[in-house]
């Protein structure tokens, strides 16, 4: 196994492009190192990107949008007052990952590129309209988060490509987001179902809703039918019921050690309603603690 710690993304990309075998990028290492120890993945090349300038920065741009470095940890996000104020759903989703110790290492980028359909931060990023900057020898391009995972453990990134930044849109006024996951315990578990909702209010009417489901299909699902169910409503009971039906209808889950098809399908609807209510209250200016189900 060869270990590299390049000084730039261009250098990292060039390294990855020119080696054979299994390559892994290392930031927090909370997936890569665990998989290595468990004999699940034994990389031939390990490229540590933590030494690149700026990878730990959280920057708010002039237009109100945010740029996060690829090594920004969950703990740093949670402690950032401005980011938490703007995007509580994204921050709380990342905060749900692992233990306190893991939070000191784990990153949004790692959670995304690990390719798990149950990754907590990914539905929240998709609902929020987050994009990532992907760097390769040909330069950089911006990719919507929902375009990155292609199946369990797989991404759309080509050989020599890597994520070099996370771009979170400006929140704007009268808007809120929320993420809820179902786990049988209270923490230290993996989502059986995850649902993220982001929306804006025009008066008391929902607009710009984005609803994303996790752990109910091979990839996270951005569900237009869910958005349609609540856009234009006051999030009344009829709209919430329609949202639940749309969420359950979108599910394409499996039965495994963590849950059954029936359970995931039912609970996706339940969580969609609960998450939408939190996002709505936040858009109304209320401070609501996101509490996983």
């Amino acid at each position, binding site marked *: 196994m060869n270990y590299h710690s390049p000084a730039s993304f261009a250098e990292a990309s060039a390294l990855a492009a020119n080696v054979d075998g299994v390559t892994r990028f290392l930031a927090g290492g909370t997936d890569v190192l665990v998989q290595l120890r468990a004999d699940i993945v034994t990389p031939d090349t390990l490229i540590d990107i933590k030494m690149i300038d700026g990878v730990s920065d959280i920057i708010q741009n002039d237009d109100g949008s945010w740029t996060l470095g690829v090594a920004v940890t969950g703990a740093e996000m949670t402690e950032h007052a401005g980011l938490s104020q703007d995007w509580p759903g994204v921050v709380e989703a990342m905060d749900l990952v692992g233990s306190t110790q893991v939070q000191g290492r784990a990153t949004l980028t790692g959670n995304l590129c690990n390719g798990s359909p149950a990754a907590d931060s990914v539905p929240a990023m998709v609902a929020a309209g987050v994009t990532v900057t992907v760097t390769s020898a040909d330069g950089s391009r911006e990719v919507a988060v929902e375009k990155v995972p292609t199946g369990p453990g797989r991404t759309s990134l080509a050989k020599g490509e890597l994520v070099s930044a996370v771009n979170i849109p400006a929140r704007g006024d009268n808007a809120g987001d929320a993420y809820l996951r179902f786990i*049988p315990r209270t923490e230290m578990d993996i989502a059986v179902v995850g649902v993220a909702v982001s929306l804006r209010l025009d008066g008391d009417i929902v607009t710009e809703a984005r609803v994303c489901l996790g752990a109910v299909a091979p990839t996270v699902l951005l569900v237009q039918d869910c958005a349609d169910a609540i856009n234009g409503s006051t999030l009344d009971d009829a709209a919430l019921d329609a949202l639940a039906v749309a969420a359950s209808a979108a599910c394409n889950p499996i039965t495994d*050690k963590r849950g059954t098809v*029936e359970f995931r399908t039912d609970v996706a609807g339940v969580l969609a309603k609960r998450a939408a209510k939190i996002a709505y209250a936040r858009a109304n200016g209320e401070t609501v603690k996101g509490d996983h*189900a």
Partner: protein
Amino acid sequence: MALDDRKSDFTFIGTRPDRPDGLDKVTGRAKFGADAVAPGMLFGAIVRSPHAHARIVKIDTSKAEAMKGVKAVVTRADFATGLTGEFWNVQENVMAGDTALYDGHAVAAVAANSALDARDAAKLIEIEYEVLPHVTDVDKAMEADAPVIRDGTADGSVPEGMHPNVVRYHESGHGDVAAGFAAADLVIEDSFKTEATHQGYIEPHACLASLGADGKGELWCTTQGHWYAQKHCAALLGIETSQLRVTASEIGGGFGGKTTVFIEPVALALSRKANRPVKMVMSRSEVLRATGPTSSTSMDVKIGMTKDGTITAAEGVFRLQGGAFPGAPMEFTAMCAFAPYALENVRQVGYDVIANRPKQAAYRAPGSPMAAFAVESVIDLLCQQLDLDPVEVRLKNASKKGTKASYGPRFDDIGLVECLEAARDHPHYSAQLEQGQGRGISCGFWFNHGGETSVSLALSEDGTVQVSVGTPDIGGSRASMALMASETLGIPYENIRVTIADTATLGYNDVSHGSRVTYASGLATIKAAQAAIAEMCKRAAAKWGIPEDAVKWEDGCAVPSGPNAGDFEPLAMADITADMGATGGPISGHFEATPEGAGVSFGVHIVDAQVDPETGKTSIPRYTVIQDAGKAIHPAYVEGQFQGGAAQGIGWALNEEYVYGEDGRLQNAVFLDYRIPVASDLPMIDTVIVEVPNPGHPYGVRGVGETGIVPPLAAIANAVSRAAGVRMFELPMSPPRILAALKADG
């Protein structure tokens, strides 16, 4: 000296001093299984079967042996031959013979210069398997077309016509159950299932082994019983027992799961072959795949009751799957099932069933929690349908002194009625429930155990005391031993140091199991202290020139036994020990026996459950444990045992389970998916210590380590079923299972 009088007013016993091992454990100085090192040490790794059931056609070790850094490879051929009985079963489990019997079964092992080299070398061992049909479910393993796992394993107890996977049978009871059911106003019969759960100790199995060509060896390991390890390792390696010295490390939890051996004989075999010390440490996945979970069960229970709540008859059939080896504790399940109740008509049947799973190991009151789940659920159903109070019904039928137990003997002094009265009078039992909550209660019973016990107590010149016991400290027993010694000797707790001696230092000590340590090692400590007191009185008598029986022991001093004995100043312990070398030599006390007055134990749990009807998720907002401790030596550690039993029971009831795929492989061999409760899942667990002294112990002690896990499965099932409005018959009551039951109920 009236040394055998039962003591009831105590100076030290019942106080809560710091544990002697506490500082070491919180500072990291304590040495656990994986903390040992030796010069020239190698590291071992095990190759495990990926198949649930497969004939081992060929093992090719040549590539591994050729790898740089590899010093030894062993297979079953490197162990003793011709073993029978449990020795053979343990050997077969530790290293497969002709057939791999479960996913994770050890097939070969390698020792190398580093742990990484050993892991890499293990991957180079090539094994050719012929995959055989498998079965992992207890009911399916008994069906006519089930694959036969180890033909000829069944013993003579099994009725004719049973499938060969049924290997042992038990039946007991008394009275006429048919007549009893005929006399009932309501008879309820239901079927129940529970999945296997793991003891979940935080410390994986670990050892350091050294065995020379001369047949002399040293073994350091994390274990609940190092004499057991000595005996079994010696047998499996074909060496003499006394030539293997075993030292027990500090232990990071056992709960019954460390009462046997797994990697220890393998490390010894590797060491013998490499002629170097070999260290082995299991990964968590190895612990879950290849060390003892509990049995899974399938049970039918039938109980008849009159309208006033009197049980007229009870009958149970208990089928336990204990892996591919005989020994599932089905007789304990059967015998414990109805023990809390005074029954005229009772019958219980047990089946020991083998399947393609790891060999079950003891887990706190082995077999009893599952029985309580089935029996106490049916009693709760009877209470619901007859509109009776669950505690009053249990009080009406409770076993008491003189009751003929469901499993045969008559009970001596027991504390079940006192526990039930404490439950009835506890504010928890009458507290208002919130919307969506239900309350459950359950009784629980465990036998408790005595076992071979040997203790030495040596006095130092300064009047302090060293106590050597042979039972690894799994629950604060060094503190308990020191308290009992200080009470007996009349000297401060701090003046006593208790050590867990190695196998070369004392006679055979049974394992720390059966809730026996505070009872049996405690009794032996008291008796050893009394022997030392007798010798000290003798020295005082000689000094004073009066007869030995004219001296008595009081508050840590020898004093004349009365005015006629003479007028002498009391001689403190340190006064006697200071010149003991000149007055007759070193003074020590010693005691060994197999005490048989352990005293059975009962408990009652009250639990509130809250069920989310939309997701089936359960939380436990309130929990109270009430249990008879006989006499609580160190109340904080008694409460800790009560709370620990409840905590493990909550996991077992709600989310812990072994999940096997269609391929017979364990699907959840990591703590992410084997869902032990985390701290935030648990409420503060309230405790009430009931003290009905055990007549079989000088200070009235009953073991408390196991009974606490007997009631939780049933109490939580009763609470969840009442909260959800639908009865749960299968564990764990995971959210998908509860939600499915709610939907089926409409």
